[in-house]
């Protein structure tokens, strides 16, 4: 006879019902409304909006800068997590708390601050000018803003996993004759990869949709530094609700496919 352990939170039916209502009100209904709105257009009209040169240019820019930022944070975020977990040094807790600041700061404030710093006459920007390149008002500036905004994701997903790997595992590998790189490649990477991918995907998804911080540093030049969310605002300012929702749906679909791929990849890694 199996004894049923009574759960801490009341029954399955109630919690599932609550989950569904909550998800519907917050996620499914708003997103569904977008699809319904866009569905009022014919396929030809949708194709015309989606294939316009400006939309294509913005699509490439939004996804490539978000990807760059996610990759950059994938590397630097791992390093940060490593330092914060494996070493104790004065001020560690302070730095640890600072990692979350990009989440707490209004993105517009971040955008204005970064622009002031990296503009051609700015504190850092002037050195770039002296070297003959520009940071603010170029895709580089956009990547920079996205890297800032998505910094916490990789750090925060990797930190607990890294803390859970006992030092002894590495020591055992070393005793068995593994070189530092082999330890990294065969011991640490497999353990960290699923969490790393989650952080990477979160950072990427957030970067694609980011508006507030990017809009100040982007320069917003059509065909060059115009991000997709800005094009949605442009359409709305022409009272073109259908056009705006169509671009919204486009972003949603592309993001969803990419996130799905990352999820599948994660599955394969977890079950070799």
């Amino acid at each position: 006879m199996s004894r049923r352990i009574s759960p801490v939170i009341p029954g399955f039916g109630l919690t599932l019902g609550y989950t569904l209502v909550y998800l519907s009100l917050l996620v499914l209904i708003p997103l569904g409304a977008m699809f319904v709105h866009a569905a009022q257009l014919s396929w030809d009209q949708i194709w015309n909006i989606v294939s316009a040169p400006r939309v294509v240019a913005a699509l490439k820019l939004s996804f490539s800068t978000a990807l760059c930022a996610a990759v950059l944070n994938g590397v630097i975020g791992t390093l940060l997590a490593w330092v914060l977990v494996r070493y104790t040094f004065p001020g560690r807790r302070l730095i640890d708390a600072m990692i979350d600041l990009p989440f707490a700061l209004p993105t517009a404030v971040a955008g204005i601050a970064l622009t002031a710093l990296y503009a051609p006459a700015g504190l850092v920007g002037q050195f770039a000018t002296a070297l003959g390149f520009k940071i603010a008002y170029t895709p580089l500036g956009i990547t920079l803003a996205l890297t800032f905004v998505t910094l916490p994701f990789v750090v925060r997903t990797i930190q607990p996993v890294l803390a859970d790997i006992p030092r002894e595992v590495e020591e055992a590998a070393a005793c068995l004759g593994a070189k530092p790189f082999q330890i990294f490649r065969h011991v640490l990477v497999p353990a960290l990869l699923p969490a790393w991918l989650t952080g990477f995907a979160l950072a990427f998804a957030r970067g694609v949709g980011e508006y507030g911080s990017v809009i100040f540093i982007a320069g917003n030049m059509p065909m060059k530094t115009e991000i997709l969310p800005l094009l949605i605002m442009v359409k709305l300012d022409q009272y073109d609700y259908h056009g705006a929702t169509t671009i919204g749906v486009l972003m949603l679909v592309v993001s969803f496919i990419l996130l799905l791929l990352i999820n599948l990849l994660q599955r394969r890694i977890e079950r070799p």
Partner: protein
Amino acid sequence: MSIRRFALAALASALIAGPTAAASTEILNVSYDPTRELYQEYNAAFNKHWTAQGKEAVTVQQSHGGSGKQARAVIDGLKADVVTLALAGDIDELNKLGKLIPADWQSRLPQSSTPYTSTIVFLVRKGNPKGIKDWGDLTKEGVEVITPNPKTSGGARWNFLAAWAWAKQTYGSDAKAQEYVKNLYQHVPVLDTGARGSTITFVNNQIGDVLLAWENEAFLALKEQGGDQFEIVAPRLSILAEPPVAVVDKNVDKKGTREVATAYLQYLYSDEGQRIAAKHFYRPRDGKVAAEFAKQFPQLKLVTIDKDFGGWKEAQPKFFNDGGVFDQIYQAQ
């Protein structure tokens, strides 16, 4: 005992006073960005005028933001009693998309429902190092021009049309005018989404040699930064920027605020209303008040949206909607 009685009395009077205070009229003025300071002062003046006639005091709530965004908020259900936006095209949408006001809204108040006007001027760095005097100087080698994106900013549309009007008068044809504006926008390194964003880019981030700005914004920047960093240059020709006002019929009828909302807008045309507008660097319509402030505003030749561009109904699709002149300028590159 007496303390308790006093407390009870205080409580009772608070209960009675509470509802009456809440019942005093409240109206919402939905406006665009740079009018914040103007309406703060005007609301107090209107309240004084209104209560002096024996009417109940009125609380005016203000809401500010990009003109297009504000119009959309009202269409989507923000219960505005009056709108005071940057251009007639945005209020037209209240009729077309929202069915909130009649099509002839603009003829209901004097001067096409525009109690004050402004224009587009140049703000340059002190001493005018690049020697910018007129529109033709903006396309000289090495000059950087700051203006917001006309797709997202009402003010930027006025900038664009002013440049177009000058080029058309100087060079004679639409094709030449288009060539000029294309050349002009090649001198623009950043397209901010709104007028305030452009002012920050020019003033704080020190980018560009000249800012195309609302006259009232330019004066405000001068006042706040002190006159030692910038100066205003008035081009030979510019555009009469007309930010109109309207009562939102559907909302005031539902709330029963038509009388006070109408009076609120009408008082903008009074001597006091006109003086407050002029104090905040908007050009007054009234001849007498305009004469009082004549020294404040530079004299320049002004074209109008209705006479020279056939109104916003023609200008918006021709220049700014998808595939319009502004898009052509950038797609051809």
